[in-house]
């Protein structure tokens, strides 16, 4: 899961919650559904092999990306896919942040959520 200490609301887009490389790879997987690591490396050719590999391992460990082993007689490889779409990720992160806010500020957080949802309507 996204670590709360890594959240930076001053940044833009997904980088508020993920590192720039994690965000970039997640966007790629949402767009292409299934990709191998050489495919990802081909698109992100400005990133080193170690950087792409490390980022993929982190995304799998945190549960935002799934991987399946594809083994044939000649070759073995991982096939990557996002574990959920953009909305799923949004839900996961929102829940985590809200739980933390409610835990710290209690009722006042719930009031604020009520006000925001009224505005939204």
């Amino acid at each position: 899961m996204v670590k709360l200490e890594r959240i930076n609301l001053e940044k833009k887009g997904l980088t508020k919650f993920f590192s720039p490389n994690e965000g970039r790879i997640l966007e790629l997987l949402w767009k292409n559904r299934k990709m191998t690591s050489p495919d990802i490396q081909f698109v992100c050719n400005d990133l080193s092999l170690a950087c792409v590999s490390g980022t993929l391992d982190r995304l799998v460990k945190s549960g935002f990306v799934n991987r399946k082993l594809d083994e044939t007689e000649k070759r073995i490889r991982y096939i990557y896919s996002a574990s959920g779409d953009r909305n799923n990720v949004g839900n996961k992160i929102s829940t985590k942040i809200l739980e933390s806010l409610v835990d710290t500020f209690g009722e006042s957080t719930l009031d604020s959520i009520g006000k925001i949802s009224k505005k939204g309507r």
Partner: protein
Amino acid sequence: MNGLECYISCLIESSLLLPIIIMIGFISIFLFRFIKKRNFESLLLSQTLMTALITISLIAMSCTMFNWLWIYLGIILIGSLMIFIIKNLLDKDIDENIINSISFVYEFEKEFNVPIQIIDSQRIKAFHYRKRIYLSIGLLERLEKEEIRAVIAHEIYHLKYSPNKIVSSLLAISSLTFRRYNDEKSADKYAVKITGVNNLINALKKLHIKNYEKRISRLSS
């Protein structure tokens, strides 16, 4: 009387000390120079003999002025104790997720007669530990089969001929170099002998291993 005079007078007065010192010295040189097949072991043995030689001399002569030799022996003793304590504290199993039943590596296990474990990671990893070779999926998916053979052959060399870290650390202390023995060059040569130079060069290029350019130029020359 200074340290050197004390040493010389002790040598002259003692009957068996000088022949013992000369004999151990010659054995050490012989071991270091002529046993080339297991180069590291001979070096370690000669280091041990040298340490024994110094200890015998010190005890026999009782020259209080040779304090620096006692300091040297102290460094070896404390260093060795530290290594064994650290080893016992840190000696654990590999902290990696292992994938079982990968048929892809069976033929390599058969060929080299060594168990190969596959690490569930995209990162590039290849190492040996407790008579097994560990390779990551990230490494396997980037290389052709012959290149994988080259990597395995490199690790086989380490498994069969390289000293373990404890022995290597002991030597680093007793030689006062405080640097571990590095035999990557010999492991590369061994891999080239088994799989050919191009396969190892290709593997190093594809994996962007640390110092790979230096290693490739060494292999090419």
